[in-house]
């Protein structure tokens, strides 16, 4: 039992250190040389929107939303840019609204604490049978906290597999080659989910459920595969 408790304590320490690594730097006003900043992404998105580049604007809004989902300005601006591009507003269910209500760091802490509470309570129920009822209530509370994190993860995870159309009228073909006749055309700023990549093409699925291969050059992944180092961001 002592071994279990020591492991739990170790995990808690690691979790704390992990969360601390995403904490703001000591001097927020100091210019950083690398990494993403939600405000910088948001400002870039606004600039692209003003410059008439809805694809790049939507891409940066989506990236800013991942870093700071509770920012009240991102969602209205994103909807406005999509409206200008004649695209429907993005769907929002309960889980998405939940993920937009809690900062990502808080979601991580909630999940960590919830797992600790639920796990330790279940163990204690076996050790202290006289307090089984109270410990069960604590375990259920921990599971609820864990559910919040799980719900946010379910809501946000598809965004990690999405890409934004940054080209004009991108043609989608049935195979990853330019010899095929286009199946349909993707408008700029549309968000598509990416299934696979092959020799400069991405297998995409649009909001209507249609699939096909589109050139990589006209799509930008919301979460790029390679780490981007840019002083401007």
């Amino acid at each position: 039992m002592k071994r279990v408790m020591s492991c739990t304590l170790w995990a808690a320490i690691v979790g704390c250190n992990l969360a601390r690594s995403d904490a703001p730097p000591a001097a927020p006003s100091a210019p950083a040389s690398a990494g993403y900043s939600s405000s910088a992404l948001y400002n870039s998105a606004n600039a692209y929107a003003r410059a008439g580049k809805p694809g790049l604007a939507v891409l940066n809004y989506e990236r800013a939303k991942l870093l700071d989902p509770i920012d009240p300005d991102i969602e209205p601006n994103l909807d406005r840019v999509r409206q200008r591009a004649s695209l429907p507003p993005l769907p929002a269910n309960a889980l998405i609204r939940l993920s937009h209500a809690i900062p990502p760091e808080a979601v991580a802490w909630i999940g960590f604490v919830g797992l600790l509470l639920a796990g330790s309570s279940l163990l204690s129920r076996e050790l202290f049978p006289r307090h089984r009822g109270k410990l069960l209530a604590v375990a259920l509370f921990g599971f609820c906290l864990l559910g919040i994190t799980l719900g946010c993860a379910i809501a946000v995870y598809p965004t990690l597999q999405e890409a934004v159309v940054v080209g004009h009228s991108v043609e989608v073909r049935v195979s990853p080659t330019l010899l095929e006749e286009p199946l349909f055309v993707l408008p700029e700023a549309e968000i598509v989910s990416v299934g696979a990549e092959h020799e400069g093409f991405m297998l995409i699925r649009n909001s209507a459920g249609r699939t096909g291969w589109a050139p990589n050059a006209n799509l930008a992944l919301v979460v790029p595969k390679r780490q981007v180092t840019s002083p401007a961001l």
Partner: protein
Amino acid sequence: MGRRFQHGIWTLAACGLLIGAVAANPARAAAAADASVDASIEPSQITLGESARLTYTTSGRGTLSVPLPVVSGLEFRVVGQSSRFEFVNGVSISSTSTIIRVTADEAGVFTIPGPTPKSPPLVLRVNPSNGAGPSLSNPAAPGLNPLNSGALEANGIRLTPDGSAYVRLEVPKHELYVGESVPAEIQVGMRDGFASSINGLPKLNSSDFTLNSLSFQPERSAKVIDGKPFTVYSWHSLLSAIKPGSYSLTFEAPVTVRIRTQPRRDSILDDLLGDPFMQNLFGPSVTKNLTVTSPGAAFTVLPLPSEGKPADFGGAVGSFKISTDVSSATNTAGDPLTLRMHVNGSGTFDRVQSTMLAADAEWKTYQSKSSFNQADPTGFRGEKTFEQPIIATKPGVQTIPALSFSYFDPGTRHYETAKSAPLRVTVSPSAADSAAAPPPLANAAANAPGAAAAKDRSGLRPDHPAASARSDSLVPVYLRPPFLGVQSVLALLFAGGWVALRRRARNARDLQRHRERVRRAAASQQLQQMAAASGAGNTALFFNSARGALQQVLSLDWQMEPEQVTTGEVEARLGPEDQAIRQLFALTDEANYSGGTPRADFERWTDVVNHRIQAHPA
């Protein structure tokens, strides 16, 4: 004018005879008692495909109804009728002759019944044909003569022996190189009124040449050969040589012609009619399927020279020019362009091939496709266009290298290589690349002091002060692998601990149950000893057995061994409601240590023990 008038007179006369023949149909029913009928057939021996003439002659007064004979394998058809009046010694005698054409469907000896039951039968012998047509192979066959003999090789055209059709090949040259194509025109001439139909496309009688597919509908024109009108059907195609050598090419075409069956001496009158339609109408004839062959055309096929053959030569022979263009002179990196190469000229376009642009560091290329726009029906002249999708991999001013195409020119008798000019394309950075690039300058203006709070004219909410935390990843913390790993390890540890505790508790419960079963069995045995001692009046044994049974039961409640349940433990643990059990332990000690036998109510103490055992939960 006079000849045309003569034709008209003969035409009217022939029509009158035809009407008379129809009016005097021998099938009509009328008979006279003193009329007689004679029958004759000429010739009595024919070749299969030829016809014989059967003549029924009725004489005397009145008419006879003579039906057409019916013989299996023979076809009878009335082709004419004539009447004659004679005055002999002041008496008029009339006779009528009905001419019937007899055609055999098969060889053999046929017996034709006479016109009347008393008439003798006629015999017609039909010999098998030699397969070359009735009169073409042997124009002097008995009873059958060609309409126009001696018309061979007139005006460079070789007519069939009966002069009804010909096949002719026209090519611009007779010396070719292997793989070279020349336009060819195949003419099938059919004399009006004698050749009735073409039963198939002309066929090339050589495996050393290839002929492109002929058009289904030929061109049609009129032509006069040796004063005779012909209808000429012309097919256009491309003739290509396969291997070197000297060859003689012939073409053949299946046609259907009408062959005269009238003897030559009788055809003079028909020839005077002039009009082919009237000739065939009045001249006895049959339709036959013939295969007309053209005269041999000599060709010399030369091999392609091996000297100076370019490495990219693909077998195209002709005269060509090339040009290239690109779909757009400005483009974005990653967007596809279409590179086109146009090959114009004349020759074997099916051998015109090109690999187009090869992939390199500046251009990513895809497989090309081609299309051909022919300028003539045969495809000898035209333009072949190759289209290749290409993608610029780098921004900037890029150059598409020159393309080349090699062919053999039979005019100069040398290999030639046509080259196009290089093309320049201005490529701008792709949109995906600019996603990571610095934003436009409008952002800088928006970040100016006071601009962040200003209401954007575009309806967007204002920019934020650039003071937010930076992260090395866009992935939320709770979806990053380290967090998920820690959570997973924690969950596994908790789950493992919970399972271990549950298993330990279950083992303890199992041990307790086993212990209960053993002690209940022991208590039951003690109860039996109590009953035996009670029956024997052995007070000491009774109380010892009673205490032993209670020790088994109480040890289960108190989680101790039965031997540890002593009188002292009983005094300490049991309450006032269990006074009887205290007394039982005291009486047992009295019976064991005093040596006397206390007075005992066996039935009462048995009830006390049973009640305590039953009170314990199973």
